[in-house]
């Protein structure tokens, strides 16, 4: 009798120890789901990849081509009107960037796309020295603060007091060096973006979609972590918190995004916030249709839990934050003209209020561990 128990124990132990690595073939089959149907993480991942992430990258990539075209025109004829066109293309691409910045997973993560594209404040001295010296390696991580959108911001908006002064730089002796540098920065941005988009289309999408489990390394868990991290560090802190000095007590207006353009930092923030919210709601890129999303996942879980309607609360708080930010003048003006910048502080507080809803309520409802730590629980 006891032998039976011991062998049973051993058998179960072996099963337990091996079960987490084994893929159960039965699971893969077309099994009938017991009702009510549980939320399919896979269809959410497919919606994310096919209808949001890849189209967003495609749109961003074509905005970069547009920027490149405008640059080439300006390169031929550095006139004020061509500068204005180039600047418009830059701004439009910069806004398009805000729609992909949050997807720092997979190919974007491995090239570190966000830090390659958008480190600010940019190092104007370094840029000047590169232009003067003519030798630089933009692939070095130490040179990330001399390229991307912020470097273009300096070159398009920061070389002179007004357009006339800026354009005059492009008729001076070192004009070729400046243009060559701009060309290299654009080339670098285009290459990186192509690389990321190609990888998404040529295999990473399948990896992403098929990793549809619930472990800490599964796509949903990892992406939700990255998504919240983006909101906290890049939207909230990067675009508003650091310039406001909320972590230091000293305002730093030179830390606003697109500092030299001076009047678009709030637009860029809002582009980021809109993209963030659209992603939350699973809104298809460039369309009005919606698919499976974090919001619908929350609604589905709520049917079981019968709790507060979290997706509505999150959307409402994002809307409140948006209204507050919309009422502001550009961030640089807010910070430079008000001491202290009270209105922007109170807008920041509303932006901040989204964080606990995501980081506490949402992940808790989905049972996703935040900043996964590989340690035992109780």
């Amino acid at each position, binding site marked *: *009798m*006891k032998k039976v*128990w011991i062998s*049973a*124990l051993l058998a*179960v*132990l072996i*099963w*337990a120890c091996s*079960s*987490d690595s*084994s893929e*159960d073939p*039965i*699971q893969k089959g077309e*099994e009938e789901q*017991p009702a*009510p149907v*549980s*939320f399919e*993480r896979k269809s959410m991942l497919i919606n994310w990849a096919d209808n949001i992430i890849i189209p967003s990258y495609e749109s961003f990539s074509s905005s970069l081509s547009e920027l490149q075209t405008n640059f080439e025109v300006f390169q031929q004829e550095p006139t004020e009107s061509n500068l204005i066109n180039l600047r418009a293309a830059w701004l439009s691409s910069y806004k398009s960037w805000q729609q992909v910045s949050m997807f720092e997973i997979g190919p974007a993560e491995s090239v570190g796309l966000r830090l390659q594209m958008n480190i600010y404040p940019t190092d104007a001295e370094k840029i000047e020295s590169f232009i003067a010296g003519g030798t630089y390696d933009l692939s070095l991580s130490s040179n990330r603060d001399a390229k991307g959108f912020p470097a273009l911001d300096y070159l398009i908006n920061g070389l002179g007091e007004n357009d006339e002064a800026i354009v005059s730089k492009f008729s001076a002796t070192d004009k070729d060096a400046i243009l060559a540098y701009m060309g290299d920065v654009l080339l670098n941005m285009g290459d990186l973006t192509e690389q990321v988009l190609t990888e998404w289309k040529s295999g990473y999408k399948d990896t992403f979609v098929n990793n*549809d*489990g*619930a*472990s800490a390394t*599964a796509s949903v868990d990892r992406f939700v972590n990255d998504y919240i991290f983006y909101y906290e560090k890049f939207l909230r*802190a990067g675009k508003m*918190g650091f310039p406001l*000095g*909320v*972590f230091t*007590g000293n305002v730093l207006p030179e830390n606003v995004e697109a500092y030299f353009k001076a009047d678009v930092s709030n637009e860029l923030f809002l582009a980021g916030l809109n993209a963030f919210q659209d992603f939350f709601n699973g809104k298809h890129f460039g369309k009005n249709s919606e698919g499976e999303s974090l919001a619908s996942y929350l609604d589905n*879980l709520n049917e*079981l*839990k019968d*709790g*507060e309607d979290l997706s509505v*609360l999150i959307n409402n708080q994002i809307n409140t934050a948006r209204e507050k930010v919309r009422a502001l003048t550009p961030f640089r003006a807010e910070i430079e003209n008000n001491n202290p910048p009270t209105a922007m502080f109170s807008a920041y507080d509303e932006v*901040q209020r989204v964080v*606990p*809803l995501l*980081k*506490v*309520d949402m*992940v*808790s*409802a*989905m*049972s*996703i*561990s*935040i*900043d*996964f*730590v*590989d*340690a*035992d*629980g*109780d």
Partner: protein
Amino acid sequence: MDSFKKKYIFNAIEAAPLAVFRIFFGLMMLWSIIRFVSYGWVEKLYIEPKFFFSYYGFEWVQPLGVYTYVIFAVCAISSILIALGYYYRWATVLFFISFTYIELMDKTTYLNHYYFTSVLAFLMIFLPANAYFAMDAKRNPQIAFQKIPSWTVNSIKLLLGIVYVYAGLAKLNSDWLLNAMPLKIWLPSKFDVPFLGNFMHLEWVAYLFSWFGAIYDLSVPFLLLYKRTRPYAFAAVVIFHVLTGVLFPIGMFPYIMIVSTLIFFDASLHHRILHFLNRILRLGKASFDNGLTKISASGLQQKTIMVGLCLFFMLQLLFPFRYLAYPGELFWTEEGYRFSWRVMLMEKSGYCQFKIMDNTSGRWFYVDNSDFLTPFQEKQMSFQPDFILEYAHFLKRHFEADGHQNVSVFVDSQVSLNGRLSRPFIDPKVDLTKEKESFNHKNWILPLNDEISGL
């Protein structure tokens, strides 16, 4: 009373079960430590962090930098010695001290099963687990006994029984039984578990698991005591712990509990296990079957044992109830929550934004917690008041050393408990630097404004 004493305390029983327990305990602990070190957790949990959360009164217990590995080495070596029964008394003392020291270094990593291990290790110091099938008994026949007083094995059974029953009592609350919380949150995310995954999102499954868990905890120690029910109870032990081990990241705990409950079986099973081990180790099992009984002869010895057992188990029985001395909802305030066998009871998480106020200059700013805490520490800190207070005091020290003067620390916190919408946790108007850690109620914790009825 006298017959009770005879039967459960001083009656001679076979020493084999205790020897088997000793061997498995040593091996399990060794395995745990190797696993812990090999996962890089020593580095990650005890060397990399800049700041450690201390237990009240144990602030002097700190990691020793790279020498922290030495503590783990001591712990590993002593567990080998325990398994061998070699210098057993020294080994158990060393194991108890080193293991407990590790657990006291940072309360971020608190787990009930670590506490269980410490309590058990302390108890084992006093048990003659080296009297049988041990190197000590082999080398010194004077301490070799085939039989030992029954309190030795019974105290382990009682300790296990307390763990289970108290874990069961803790489940008798409205969240667990009436709302199937937190399992309603946890189970649906386990959809990728083989076989069971397809059922995890069903409401009745969450209720079934909740009720089965509570009934299991409350009944299994009793069912293990009786020969008739024992095989079924042990099957339940195996199923329960394997299931929880598959579903939740609880590390070694399920296996430790399964192996520990073997102590409830008759000595014949343990003799068979030892026969098997003897074939490998060639310790000469037969030589231990010397028919000798270790007896506590003098009245004084017997009295000491009785008093010691009474004190130890009174403490074990009463300590988990200390939460009754505090007002407010236990799950919310967590005053008296730890060290009480409250296992996997809550889905609780929080978010804290600390505000530093320099009262001399009037300047203020927020803290980026990741500057000081690991993600794991930040996670644990954000919903436990004693962590929040300790961290606030650390922030004051840090920023005053940094040149700020007369610093006040405020916290804006949101905590969600068992699926309730997050709500403010700590009074944001209270300057935490003015509050002291103590065993008194922390009146700066805001109320939950909801009742969780039950024990």
